[in-house]
């Protein structure tokens, strides 16, 4: 498991930004991390004349429970992406996710449009729209505003760096 990284973000009076980072053990609970971050920020604030604009906590996740391929397929290319357009109905906003190295076998025949009825695509769509449940708690996907995603509106294959 990766050590948990704490990244502190700074901004000076001219608006220039910088960061500093250090690690704590991956076994530290989220509850303790919340309090530790506050305490560490106060200590670091004592050394700097900049504004501390935020702290990002990066927790390593264990994917050993997933059944993942170990070797990339022959024509896989990071430039080739599956773009999904997501919609939330509360504010009526759209958002997007990109899946690099998209396999066009999941497109409609002779098309760059992703087949949302494809079995594997449908599995992803269900996760994006309904979330994943553990111990009676359903973890759902949200957009940048924190609103739940209600619908995957469309998907298509694109080619671009970002």
């Amino acid at each position: 498991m990766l050590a948990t990284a704490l990244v502190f973000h700074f901004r000076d009076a001219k608006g220039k930004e910088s960061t500093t980072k250090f690690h704590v053990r991956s076994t530290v609970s989220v509850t303790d991390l919340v309090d530790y971050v506050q305490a560490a920020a106060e200590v670091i604030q004592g050394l700097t004349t900049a504004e501390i604009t935020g702290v990002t906590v990066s927790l390593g996740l264990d994917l050993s429970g997933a059944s993942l391929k170990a070797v990339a397929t022959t024509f896989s290319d990071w430039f080739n992406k599956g773009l999904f357009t997501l919609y939330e109905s509360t504010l009526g906003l759209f958002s997007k996710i990109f899946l690099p190295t998209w396999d066009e076998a999941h497109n409609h025949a002779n098309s760059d449009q992703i087949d949302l009825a494809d079995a594997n695509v449908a599995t992803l769509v269900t996760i994006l729209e309904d979330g994943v449940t553990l111990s009676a708690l359903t973890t759902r996907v949200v957009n940048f505003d924190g609103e739940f995603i209600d619908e995957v509106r469309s998907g298509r294959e694109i080619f671009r760096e970002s």
Partner: protein
Amino acid sequence: MATEIVFTIRDQRGKKTTTSVKVVEHPRANVQNFAVAYADAIDNLIGGVVEGAVALMAGDISGLVSNVALASSDVEEIGSAQFVAATGRKVLMNIPSLKESLVDNATGNLDETEAEVIAFLSMMEDGITVNSNLIRAVDVAEENIVSHRYFRERSRSSGARRGNV
């Protein structure tokens, strides 16, 4: 605030990139469970290899007081520290916009009799206790940081960085 899960993907030429999804902020076990299910789902849709995942959360620093940049602040003026882990591995850490008042002008080193410097070095080498649990700073292999070799003032070009929480 949302938790962003970032997956690293590697293509057949070894090029790495990422994809991310935001989820509602839930206990670690639930986020972990979601990540496994999502990784399985995208693995069946892509030709690349899902190499790993991290969850990014915003820390709460709302308790900081007087958290305003001074007119003289400059992120290119840094305090550069080299810490040492229990196994001897070196860990570098910089403090942007270092307070000049903490520097020994004769040597350029941070004055280790200053309360703020003492507090920082203690946090990094001895840890902080929260909720009765001692939390230590570690290196990437999760070995405790135990000492430092130097902590001194440096100047460097940092440039503008993205990375807002």
